Protein backbone atom coordinates (compact mmCIF):
# COMPACT_ATOMS: atom_id res chain seq x y z
CA UNK A 1 0.00 0.00 0.00
CA UNK A 2 1.64 3.26 -1.06
CA UNK A 3 1.96 5.89 1.63
CA UNK A 4 -0.48 8.74 1.35
CA UNK A 5 1.04 11.92 0.00
CA UNK A 6 1.17 14.93 2.27
CA UNK A 7 -1.40 16.61 0.03
CA UNK A 8 -3.83 13.73 0.56
CA UNK A 9 -3.17 13.84 4.28
CA UNK A 10 -3.95 17.54 4.38
CA UNK A 11 -7.15 17.00 2.43
CA UNK A 12 -8.15 14.22 4.82
CA UNK A 13 -7.45 16.41 7.84
CA UNK A 14 -9.56 19.16 6.37
CA UNK A 15 -12.34 16.71 5.69
CA UNK A 16 -12.23 15.32 9.23
CA UNK A 17 -12.32 18.83 10.66
CA UNK A 18 -15.27 19.84 8.47
CA UNK A 19 -17.14 16.61 9.14
CA UNK A 20 -16.82 16.97 12.89
CA UNK A 21 -17.84 20.62 12.72
CA UNK A 22 -20.88 19.78 10.61
CA UNK A 23 -22.14 16.73 12.39
CA UNK A 24 -20.57 16.65 15.83
CA UNK A 25 -20.74 20.31 16.76
CA UNK A 26 -16.96 20.67 16.88
CA UNK A 27 -16.14 24.30 17.50
CA UNK A 28 -13.77 25.58 14.86
CA UNK A 29 -10.96 27.91 15.82
CA UNK A 30 -9.75 28.11 12.24
CA UNK A 31 -6.82 25.75 12.84
CA UNK A 32 -6.31 22.38 11.23
CA UNK A 33 -6.30 19.29 13.38
CA UNK A 34 -2.99 19.02 15.15
CA UNK A 35 -1.10 15.87 14.34
CA UNK A 36 -0.11 13.38 17.03
CA UNK A 37 -2.80 14.73 19.23
CA UNK A 38 -4.22 12.05 21.48
CA UNK A 39 -6.70 14.00 23.54
CA UNK A 40 -8.88 17.05 23.20
CA UNK A 41 -12.15 17.80 21.45
CA UNK A 42 -11.22 16.41 18.04
CA UNK A 43 -10.31 13.03 19.47
CA UNK A 44 -13.42 12.98 21.63
CA UNK A 45 -15.66 13.84 18.69
CA UNK A 46 -13.92 11.26 16.51
CA UNK A 47 -14.53 8.64 19.19
CA UNK A 48 -18.22 9.61 19.32
CA UNK A 49 -18.45 9.28 15.56
CA UNK A 50 -16.67 5.91 15.52
CA UNK A 51 -18.84 4.55 18.31
CA UNK A 52 -22.00 5.67 16.52
CA UNK A 53 -21.06 3.91 13.29
CA UNK A 54 -19.86 0.76 15.03
CA UNK A 55 -16.25 1.33 13.98
CA UNK A 56 -13.26 0.54 16.13
CA UNK A 57 -13.06 3.43 18.61
CA UNK A 58 -9.52 4.73 18.22
CA UNK A 59 -9.99 8.49 18.22
CA UNK A 60 -7.84 8.50 15.07
CA UNK A 61 -8.93 9.20 11.52
CA UNK A 62 -8.00 5.74 10.23
CA UNK A 63 -8.91 4.51 6.75
CA UNK A 64 -12.22 3.01 7.80
CA UNK A 65 -13.26 6.22 9.55
CA UNK A 66 -12.26 8.34 6.56
CA UNK A 67 -14.22 6.08 4.22
CA UNK A 68 -17.31 6.40 6.39
CA UNK A 69 -16.94 10.18 6.45
CA UNK A 70 -16.75 10.26 2.66
CA UNK A 71 -20.12 8.55 2.24
CA UNK A 72 -22.93 10.93 1.20
CA UNK A 73 -25.37 11.51 4.03
CA UNK A 74 -28.21 13.44 5.51
CA UNK A 75 -27.35 16.95 6.66
CA UNK A 76 -27.55 17.87 10.29
CA UNK A 77 -30.05 20.62 11.03
CA UNK A 78 -32.52 18.20 12.50
CA UNK A 79 -32.98 20.55 15.43
CA UNK A 80 -34.74 23.80 14.74
CA UNK A 81 -33.61 26.56 17.05
Amino acid at each position, binding site marked *: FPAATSETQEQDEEMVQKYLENYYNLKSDGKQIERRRNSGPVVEKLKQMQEF*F*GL*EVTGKPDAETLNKMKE*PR*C*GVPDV*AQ
Partner: protein
Amino acid sequence: FVLTPGNPQWKDTNLTYRIENYTPDLPRADVDHAIENAFQLWSNVSPLTFTKVFEGQADIMISFVRGDHHDNSPFDGPGGNLAHAFQPGPGIGGDAHFDEDERWTNNYLEYNLYRVAAHELGHSLGLSHSTDIGALMYPNYIFSGDVQLSQDDISGIQAIYGPSPNPIQPTGPQTPQTCDNKLTFDAVTTIRGEVMFFKDRFYMRANSFYPEVELNFISVFWPHLPNGLQAAYEVVDRDEIRFFKGNKYWAFQGMKMLHGYPKNIHRSFGIPTTVKSIDAAVSDENTGKTYFFVAKKYWRYDEYKQSMDAGYPKMIADDFPGIGNKVDAVFQKDGFFYFFLGTRQYKFDPKTKRILSLQKANSWFKC
Protein backbone atom coordinates in the same frame (compact mmCIF):
# COMPACT_ATOMS: atom_id res chain seq x y z
CA PHE B 1 -33.43 4.25 17.13
CA VAL B 2 -32.78 7.69 18.53
CA LEU B 3 -35.40 10.32 19.28
CA THR B 4 -34.65 13.97 18.59
CA PRO B 5 -33.35 15.61 21.79
CA GLY B 6 -36.23 17.07 23.78
CA ASN B 7 -38.60 14.57 22.16
CA PRO B 8 -40.40 17.08 19.91
CA GLN B 9 -43.58 15.74 18.32
CA TRP B 10 -46.66 16.85 16.45
CA LYS B 11 -49.68 17.28 18.71
CA ASP B 12 -52.12 16.70 15.86
CA THR B 13 -51.75 13.38 14.08
CA ASN B 14 -53.47 14.67 10.92
CA LEU B 15 -50.72 16.59 9.15
CA THR B 16 -50.52 18.51 5.90
CA TYR B 17 -47.66 18.83 3.45
CA ARG B 18 -46.94 20.96 0.41
CA ILE B 19 -44.35 20.56 -2.32
CA GLU B 20 -43.20 24.14 -2.87
CA ASN B 21 -41.16 23.51 -6.01
CA TYR B 22 -39.96 20.64 -8.16
CA THR B 23 -36.56 19.36 -9.18
CA PRO B 24 -36.00 19.39 -12.94
CA ASP B 25 -34.27 16.00 -12.59
CA LEU B 26 -37.55 14.08 -12.59
CA PRO B 27 -41.05 14.45 -14.06
CA ARG B 28 -43.34 16.18 -11.58
CA ALA B 29 -45.49 13.09 -11.28
CA ASP B 30 -42.45 11.09 -10.17
CA VAL B 31 -41.62 13.65 -7.49
CA ASP B 32 -45.24 13.60 -6.28
CA HIS B 33 -45.15 9.83 -6.24
CA ALA B 34 -41.84 9.62 -4.34
CA ILE B 35 -43.00 12.07 -1.66
CA GLU B 36 -46.44 10.47 -1.33
CA ASN B 37 -44.89 7.03 -0.97
CA ALA B 38 -42.40 8.30 1.58
CA PHE B 39 -45.24 9.67 3.73
CA GLN B 40 -47.15 6.45 3.31
CA LEU B 41 -44.31 4.43 4.78
CA TRP B 42 -44.70 6.32 8.04
CA SER B 43 -48.52 6.49 8.03
CA ASN B 44 -48.71 2.72 7.51
CA VAL B 45 -47.09 2.04 10.87
CA SER B 46 -48.44 4.88 13.05
CA PRO B 47 -51.62 6.86 13.75
CA LEU B 48 -50.32 9.70 11.54
CA THR B 49 -52.09 10.81 8.35
CA PHE B 50 -50.73 13.14 5.70
CA THR B 51 -52.76 15.30 3.33
CA LYS B 52 -51.24 17.11 0.40
CA VAL B 53 -52.17 20.78 0.03
CA PHE B 54 -51.36 23.03 -2.92
CA GLU B 55 -51.22 26.48 -1.38
CA GLY B 56 -50.54 28.28 1.88
CA GLN B 57 -48.58 27.06 4.86
CA ALA B 58 -48.56 23.30 5.47
CA ASP B 59 -47.11 21.56 8.49
CA ILE B 60 -44.35 20.06 6.36
CA MET B 61 -43.07 22.23 3.51
CA ILE B 62 -40.92 20.44 0.96
CA SER B 63 -38.52 22.21 -1.35
CA PHE B 64 -35.53 21.70 -3.64
CA VAL B 65 -32.87 24.30 -2.95
CA ARG B 66 -29.15 24.68 -3.44
CA GLY B 67 -26.27 26.30 -1.60
CA ASP B 68 -27.17 28.87 1.03
CA HIS B 69 -30.94 28.82 1.23
CA HIS B 70 -31.25 31.02 4.31
CA ASP B 71 -31.83 28.49 7.04
CA ASN B 72 -28.34 28.66 8.57
CA SER B 73 -27.46 25.29 7.06
CA PRO B 74 -26.23 25.81 3.50
CA PHE B 75 -25.91 22.88 1.15
CA ASP B 76 -22.51 22.01 -0.21
CA GLY B 77 -22.85 21.29 -3.93
CA PRO B 78 -22.89 17.79 -5.42
CA GLY B 79 -22.34 14.87 -3.01
CA GLY B 80 -21.76 15.40 0.71
CA ASN B 81 -25.00 16.61 2.25
CA LEU B 82 -27.98 15.42 0.25
CA ALA B 83 -30.87 16.83 2.26
CA HIS B 84 -31.97 17.88 5.70
CA ALA B 85 -35.15 18.32 7.66
CA PHE B 86 -36.27 20.10 10.81
CA GLN B 87 -37.85 18.61 13.88
CA PRO B 88 -41.62 18.97 14.50
CA GLY B 89 -42.69 22.50 15.29
CA PRO B 90 -44.23 25.66 13.86
CA GLY B 91 -42.73 27.65 10.97
CA ILE B 92 -39.68 25.90 9.58
CA GLY B 93 -40.35 22.97 11.92
CA GLY B 94 -41.00 19.75 9.99
CA ASP B 95 -39.78 21.23 6.70
CA ALA B 96 -37.61 19.10 4.42
CA HIS B 97 -35.03 20.55 2.04
CA PHE B 98 -33.42 18.59 -0.79
CA ASP B 99 -30.12 19.74 -2.30
CA GLU B 100 -30.83 20.68 -5.91
CA ASP B 101 -27.15 20.22 -6.70
CA GLU B 102 -27.74 16.47 -6.43
CA ARG B 103 -29.15 14.43 -9.26
CA TRP B 104 -32.46 12.99 -8.04
CA THR B 105 -33.61 9.70 -9.51
CA ASN B 106 -36.43 7.19 -9.30
CA ASN B 107 -34.12 4.18 -9.66
CA TYR B 108 -30.96 2.65 -8.19
CA LEU B 109 -28.74 5.46 -9.49
CA GLU B 110 -27.67 8.11 -7.01
CA TYR B 111 -29.70 9.62 -5.46
CA ASN B 112 -33.07 7.95 -5.15
CA LEU B 113 -35.54 10.65 -4.10
CA TYR B 114 -38.00 8.24 -2.47
CA ARG B 115 -35.22 6.81 -0.30
CA VAL B 116 -33.93 10.20 0.82
CA ALA B 117 -37.44 11.62 1.35
CA ALA B 118 -38.40 8.66 3.53
CA HIS B 119 -35.39 9.38 5.73
CA GLU B 120 -35.96 13.14 5.93
CA LEU B 121 -39.62 12.73 6.82
CA GLY B 122 -38.51 10.61 9.75
CA HIS B 123 -36.74 13.75 11.02
CA SER B 124 -39.84 15.84 10.26
CA LEU B 125 -41.76 13.52 12.58
CA GLY B 126 -39.26 13.60 15.46
CA LEU B 127 -36.73 10.85 14.82
CA SER B 128 -33.00 11.45 14.90
CA HIS B 129 -30.28 9.29 13.33
CA SER B 130 -30.25 5.60 14.15
CA THR B 131 -27.12 3.52 14.64
CA ASP B 132 -28.83 0.56 12.93
CA ILE B 133 -27.38 0.33 9.41
CA GLY B 134 -30.55 -1.41 8.26
CA ALA B 135 -32.76 1.47 9.40
CA LEU B 136 -34.01 4.20 7.09
CA MET B 137 -32.89 6.63 9.79
CA TYR B 138 -29.24 5.62 9.46
CA PRO B 139 -27.53 8.88 8.44
CA ASN B 140 -25.62 7.71 5.35
CA TYR B 141 -27.18 7.12 1.95
CA ILE B 142 -27.58 3.43 1.20
CA PHE B 143 -30.01 2.23 -1.44
CA SER B 144 -30.64 -1.49 -1.48
CA GLY B 145 -33.19 -1.59 -4.28
CA ASP B 146 -36.25 -1.26 -2.12
CA VAL B 147 -37.32 1.31 0.45
CA GLN B 148 -38.85 -0.06 3.59
CA LEU B 149 -39.01 0.78 7.26
CA SER B 150 -36.98 -1.56 9.40
CA GLN B 151 -38.26 -2.75 12.74
CA ASP B 152 -35.97 -0.14 14.30
CA ASP B 153 -37.74 2.68 12.40
CA ILE B 154 -41.16 1.30 13.32
CA SER B 155 -40.23 1.01 16.99
CA GLY B 156 -38.94 4.60 16.86
CA ILE B 157 -42.01 6.21 15.33
CA GLN B 158 -44.32 4.18 17.57
CA ALA B 159 -42.35 5.30 20.62
CA ILE B 160 -43.42 8.85 19.71
CA TYR B 161 -46.94 8.44 18.35
CA GLY B 162 -48.08 5.02 19.54
CA PRO B 163 -49.04 1.98 17.51
CA SER B 164 -50.88 1.86 14.22
CA PRO B 165 -54.69 1.74 14.45
CA ASN B 166 -54.49 -1.25 12.11
CA PRO B 167 -55.62 -4.38 14.03
CA ILE B 168 -52.65 -6.25 12.57
CA GLN B 169 -49.58 -4.45 13.82
CA PRO B 170 -47.02 -3.90 11.05
CA THR B 171 -43.55 -5.25 11.53
CA GLY B 172 -40.34 -4.62 9.65
CA PRO B 173 -37.14 -6.48 8.86
CA GLN B 174 -34.56 -6.79 11.58
CA THR B 175 -30.93 -6.14 10.88
CA PRO B 176 -28.88 -9.28 11.59
CA GLN B 177 -26.80 -9.16 14.75
CA THR B 178 -23.53 -10.94 14.07
CA CYS B 179 -23.29 -12.29 17.62
CA ASP B 180 -26.92 -13.39 17.85
CA ASN B 181 -26.98 -17.06 18.91
CA LYS B 182 -30.00 -17.56 16.67
CA LEU B 183 -28.32 -16.17 13.55
CA THR B 184 -28.77 -18.28 10.43
CA PHE B 185 -27.54 -17.68 6.88
CA ASP B 186 -29.09 -17.72 3.42
CA ALA B 187 -25.78 -18.41 1.69
CA VAL B 188 -22.04 -18.43 2.39
CA THR B 189 -19.15 -18.38 -0.05
CA THR B 190 -15.49 -17.65 -0.34
CA ILE B 191 -14.65 -14.58 -2.42
CA ARG B 192 -11.04 -13.99 -3.35
CA GLY B 193 -9.74 -15.51 -0.16
CA GLU B 194 -12.36 -14.07 2.18
CA VAL B 195 -15.55 -15.66 3.43
CA MET B 196 -18.81 -13.75 2.98
CA PHE B 197 -22.07 -14.60 4.68
CA PHE B 198 -25.43 -13.52 3.26
CA LYS B 199 -28.67 -12.90 5.12
CA ASP B 200 -31.73 -11.03 3.76
CA ARG B 201 -30.44 -7.69 2.39
CA PHE B 202 -27.08 -7.95 4.11
CA TYR B 203 -23.65 -9.47 3.84
CA MET B 204 -21.31 -10.11 6.75
CA ARG B 205 -17.58 -10.34 6.29
CA ALA B 206 -15.02 -11.34 8.87
CA ASN B 207 -11.54 -10.20 8.00
CA SER B 208 -8.53 -10.75 10.19
CA PHE B 209 -7.29 -7.22 9.39
CA TYR B 210 -10.31 -5.62 11.06
CA PRO B 211 -11.48 -6.23 14.59
CA GLU B 212 -15.18 -5.80 13.76
CA VAL B 213 -17.28 -7.95 11.45
CA GLU B 214 -18.32 -5.83 8.49
CA LEU B 215 -22.08 -5.78 8.00
CA ASN B 216 -23.54 -3.92 5.07
CA PHE B 217 -26.03 -4.17 2.26
CA ILE B 218 -25.40 -6.68 -0.53
CA SER B 219 -26.21 -3.83 -2.92
CA VAL B 220 -23.05 -2.00 -1.84
CA PHE B 221 -21.01 -4.52 -3.85
CA TRP B 222 -23.61 -5.97 -6.21
CA PRO B 223 -26.44 -3.51 -6.92
CA HIS B 224 -27.91 -5.87 -9.52
CA LEU B 225 -28.48 -8.74 -7.10
CA PRO B 226 -31.83 -9.34 -5.43
CA ASN B 227 -32.15 -9.59 -1.66
CA GLY B 228 -32.66 -12.94 0.00
CA LEU B 229 -30.12 -14.96 -1.96
CA GLN B 230 -30.46 -18.72 -1.59
CA ALA B 231 -27.03 -20.03 -2.54
CA ALA B 232 -23.62 -18.81 -3.66
CA TYR B 233 -20.32 -20.34 -4.65
CA GLU B 234 -16.95 -19.36 -6.04
CA VAL B 235 -15.14 -20.96 -8.97
CA VAL B 236 -11.64 -20.04 -7.89
CA ASP B 237 -9.95 -20.94 -11.20
CA ARG B 238 -12.16 -18.54 -13.09
CA ASP B 239 -12.26 -15.88 -10.36
CA GLU B 240 -16.02 -16.10 -10.59
CA ILE B 241 -18.77 -15.94 -7.97
CA ARG B 242 -22.25 -17.23 -8.70
CA PHE B 243 -25.31 -16.21 -6.73
CA PHE B 244 -28.62 -18.09 -6.83
CA LYS B 245 -32.22 -17.14 -6.19
CA GLY B 246 -35.17 -19.12 -7.50
CA ASN B 247 -34.41 -20.48 -10.97
CA LYS B 248 -32.00 -17.64 -11.77
CA TYR B 249 -28.32 -17.14 -11.11
CA TRP B 250 -25.93 -14.22 -11.53
CA ALA B 251 -22.18 -14.44 -12.17
CA PHE B 252 -19.61 -11.82 -11.15
CA GLN B 253 -15.91 -11.24 -11.29
CA GLY B 254 -15.37 -9.18 -8.17
CA MET B 255 -18.02 -6.48 -8.33
CA LYS B 256 -18.50 -6.70 -12.09
CA MET B 257 -21.50 -8.66 -13.35
CA LEU B 258 -20.62 -10.84 -16.31
CA HIS B 259 -22.42 -10.31 -19.59
CA GLY B 260 -25.73 -12.06 -20.18
CA TYR B 261 -26.80 -12.61 -16.59
CA PRO B 262 -29.04 -13.52 -14.88
CA LYS B 263 -29.30 -16.93 -16.50
CA ASN B 264 -31.54 -19.89 -15.91
CA ILE B 265 -30.28 -22.75 -13.70
CA HIS B 266 -32.10 -25.40 -15.71
CA ARG B 267 -30.61 -24.46 -19.06
CA SER B 268 -27.11 -23.67 -17.75
CA PHE B 269 -26.49 -26.59 -15.43
CA GLY B 270 -29.00 -29.18 -16.57
CA ILE B 271 -30.83 -29.12 -13.27
CA PRO B 272 -34.34 -30.61 -13.77
CA THR B 273 -37.18 -28.12 -14.15
CA THR B 274 -38.89 -29.69 -11.14
CA VAL B 275 -36.22 -27.99 -9.02
CA LYS B 276 -37.46 -24.50 -8.24
CA SER B 277 -34.44 -23.27 -6.29
CA ILE B 278 -31.05 -24.28 -4.91
CA ASP B 279 -30.60 -24.47 -1.13
CA ALA B 280 -26.81 -24.34 -1.13
CA ALA B 281 -23.85 -24.78 -3.47
CA VAL B 282 -20.11 -25.22 -3.22
CA SER B 283 -17.39 -25.84 -5.76
CA ASP B 284 -14.48 -28.04 -4.73
CA GLU B 285 -11.49 -26.13 -6.01
CA ASN B 286 -9.34 -29.27 -6.04
CA THR B 287 -11.60 -31.29 -8.32
CA GLY B 288 -13.62 -28.67 -10.20
CA LYS B 289 -16.80 -30.40 -9.04
CA THR B 290 -19.68 -28.23 -7.92
CA TYR B 291 -22.29 -29.60 -5.55
CA PHE B 292 -25.86 -28.30 -5.67
CA PHE B 293 -27.94 -29.13 -2.61
CA VAL B 294 -31.71 -29.23 -3.02
CA ALA B 295 -33.85 -30.52 -0.12
CA LYS B 296 -32.64 -34.09 0.67
CA LYS B 297 -30.70 -34.53 -2.58
CA TYR B 298 -27.64 -33.17 -4.28
CA TRP B 299 -26.37 -32.91 -7.85
CA ARG B 300 -22.73 -32.76 -8.97
CA TYR B 301 -21.63 -30.55 -11.83
CA ASP B 302 -18.25 -30.61 -13.56
CA GLU B 303 -16.93 -27.08 -14.07
CA TYR B 304 -14.33 -28.25 -16.62
CA LYS B 305 -16.69 -30.29 -18.79
CA GLN B 306 -19.50 -27.85 -18.05
CA SER B 307 -21.98 -30.66 -17.66
CA MET B 308 -23.79 -32.46 -14.88
CA ASP B 309 -22.14 -35.72 -13.78
CA ALA B 310 -24.12 -38.88 -14.48
CA GLY B 311 -25.85 -40.75 -11.68
CA TYR B 312 -27.22 -37.75 -9.85
CA PRO B 313 -29.16 -36.69 -7.84
CA LYS B 314 -28.03 -38.65 -4.83
CA MET B 315 -29.15 -38.48 -1.23
CA ILE B 316 -27.21 -36.03 0.95
CA ALA B 317 -27.46 -38.46 3.85
CA ASP B 318 -25.65 -41.19 1.87
CA ASP B 319 -22.57 -39.20 0.83
CA PHE B 320 -22.42 -36.57 3.56
CA PRO B 321 -23.25 -38.69 6.60
CA GLY B 322 -24.54 -36.68 9.55
CA ILE B 323 -25.31 -33.58 7.52
CA GLY B 324 -29.02 -34.24 7.47
CA ASN B 325 -31.76 -33.46 5.05
CA LYS B 326 -31.60 -29.82 4.17
CA VAL B 327 -28.64 -27.48 3.97
CA ASP B 328 -28.89 -23.69 4.30
CA ALA B 329 -25.41 -22.88 3.05
CA VAL B 330 -22.01 -24.43 2.45
CA PHE B 331 -18.52 -23.25 1.55
CA GLN B 332 -15.08 -24.78 1.19
CA LYS B 333 -11.95 -23.63 2.99
CA ASP B 334 -8.58 -25.39 3.29
CA GLY B 335 -10.05 -28.55 1.80
CA PHE B 336 -12.93 -28.82 4.26
CA PHE B 337 -16.61 -28.20 3.64
CA TYR B 338 -18.47 -26.09 6.19
CA PHE B 339 -22.19 -26.88 6.19
CA PHE B 340 -24.76 -24.56 7.77
CA LEU B 341 -28.06 -25.95 9.04
CA GLY B 342 -30.02 -23.42 11.05
CA THR B 343 -27.87 -22.21 13.91
CA ARG B 344 -25.45 -25.17 13.56
CA GLN B 345 -22.32 -25.48 11.48
CA TYR B 346 -20.53 -28.72 10.61
CA LYS B 347 -16.91 -28.96 9.51
CA PHE B 348 -16.83 -31.87 7.09
CA ASP B 349 -13.88 -33.69 5.53
CA PRO B 350 -14.92 -34.68 1.99
CA LYS B 351 -12.02 -37.15 1.74
CA THR B 352 -12.96 -39.24 4.77
CA LYS B 353 -16.66 -38.31 4.60
CA ARG B 354 -16.66 -37.52 8.30
CA ILE B 355 -17.85 -34.60 10.36
CA LEU B 356 -14.88 -33.15 12.22
CA SER B 357 -16.60 -30.61 14.47
CA LEU B 358 -19.89 -28.94 15.29
CA GLN B 359 -20.01 -25.20 15.99
CA LYS B 360 -22.46 -22.31 16.10
CA ALA B 361 -23.26 -20.91 12.64
CA ASN B 362 -21.67 -17.56 13.55
CA SER B 363 -18.41 -19.05 14.88
CA TRP B 364 -16.41 -17.08 12.28
CA PHE B 365 -17.38 -13.80 13.91
CA LYS B 366 -15.27 -14.22 17.08
CA CYS B 367 -18.18 -13.38 19.34
